[in-house]
């Protein structure tokens, strides 16, 4: 019953100018990606395979949608810290557990919403350019699973950052910085391996072991994925669910 109440109040917080702007950007860019890829595919000499198109669409759409949903997550929780509504909720009789579970549930619903919108945008692009058969071929179960999981994983990562830092702007900066540092590390490692003849054996895929990049390696449909990489990502998922909870319940709720 309490959860129902907190969910209702979370839903009431959604219609905000900032969220409308994010939604507008989300729709606009997703539609642009959809039109761009289907137009490119329809006007090419068909040397590009549908599988390549599917992978390109998935990569672009997940990168963009993940970024927007991460900003949404950070802003939504950051605002609670900033406005002191967390404290108010607790005074109103909610426990921290109620609040955390309610927030996670509402974010889960938002991921489902973003996922559906992403697919609808692709459908609109395909329908407008007469590429419906191509659309149905690229929307495979792995495509759908990977799109959804990538969005949800990003939400978990963003949640971890905002509960850790408690300030929206700093968390968004950290989100970018973290991604940047991981990419640079993977690049430097690959360069060292490639140009150093003294290094023997198979190079490890460093991206498998980094929190933000591990999901991309695991959801890679271009090569076989090792189960050890799935294990590492699973550990990160458990940590990203538990650590925000731990940080939220053990620390002061003021920002």
């Amino acid at each position, binding site marked *: 019953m309490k959860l129902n109440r907190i969910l209702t109040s979370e839903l009431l917080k959604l219609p905000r100018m900032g969220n409308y702007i994010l939604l507008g950007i989300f729709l606009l860019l997703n539609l642009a990606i959809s039109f761009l890829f289907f137009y490119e595919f329809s006007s090419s000499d068909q040397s590009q*395979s549908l599988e390549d198109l599917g992978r390109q669409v998935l990569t672009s759409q997940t990168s963009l949608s993940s970024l927007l949903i991460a900003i949404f997550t950070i802003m939504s929780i950051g605002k609670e810290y900033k406005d002191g509504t967390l404290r108010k909720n607790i005074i109103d009789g909610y426990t921290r*557990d109620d609040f*955390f579970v309610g927030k996670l549930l509402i974010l889960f619903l938002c991921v489902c919403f973003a996922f559906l919108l992403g697919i609808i945008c692709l459908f609109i692009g395909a329908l407008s350019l007469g590429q419906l058969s191509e659309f149905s071929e690229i929307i495979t179960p792995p495509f759908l*699973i990977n799109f959804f*999981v990538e969005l949800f994983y990003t939400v978990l990562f963003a949640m971890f950052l905002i509960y850790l830092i408690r300030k929206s702007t700093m968390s968004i900066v950290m989100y970018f910085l973290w991604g940047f540092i991981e990419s640079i590390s993977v690049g430097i490692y690959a360069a060292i391996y490639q140009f150093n003849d003294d290094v023997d054996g198979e190079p490890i895929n460093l991206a498998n072991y980094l929190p933000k990049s591990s999901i991309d390696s695991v959801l890679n449909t271009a090569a076989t994925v090792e189960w050890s990489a799935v294990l590492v990502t*699973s550990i990160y998922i458990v940590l990203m669910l538990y650590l925000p909870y731990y940080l939220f319940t053990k620390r002061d709720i003021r920002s």
Partner: protein
Amino acid sequence: MRRSTILFLAVIAVFVIGLISTSVYFTNKEINRGEEERSNMNMLNALIDNTNGQHKVINEELQGNVLVINVWATWCGPCIREIPELNILEEEFASDDIRFLAFDDLDSAKELSIMKEREIEFNYELYFNEKELIELLYSYKLPNENRAVPLNIVIDRKGKPAFYYMGYQKDKIDELRTYLENVNKASIKVDLL
């Protein structure tokens, strides 16, 4: 920590990990199936059939040979980068029954002048204007593989592809060397018998 919260977090974790595992399982299964099918096909026969046996080099005369095929172009950086290593392989292993063939889809005059200008020496047997054959070679790419240049294929004596990979991969060239050494050893044994 409340029991209901633990349960909720556990359900979410199991759900997401379950989705990931399902995706990985089906992707791996699909890739392995595709690789197995390709490695069991007779690629040489398929190439000959698809070119109606009319191609100037890929034809019946190549049956029983080992073919080391490279698809390249002068505009392709990784192709140029792997050429010195491929040249060494060619020097060591090229023979009447181990053929090193390179196919480029561009015009020979233009490509040869660029090669001269940039001092690119490629020891393979060079064939230009091979767009159709190149498209045919790429048609054996698996759905999971991204199309890239260079494309390296090794077809064994039975016509089956022993190697099929795209992009410059140093470790693959090392594997290729080991493979060709074994091919040579096997040939010597046959000769002795």
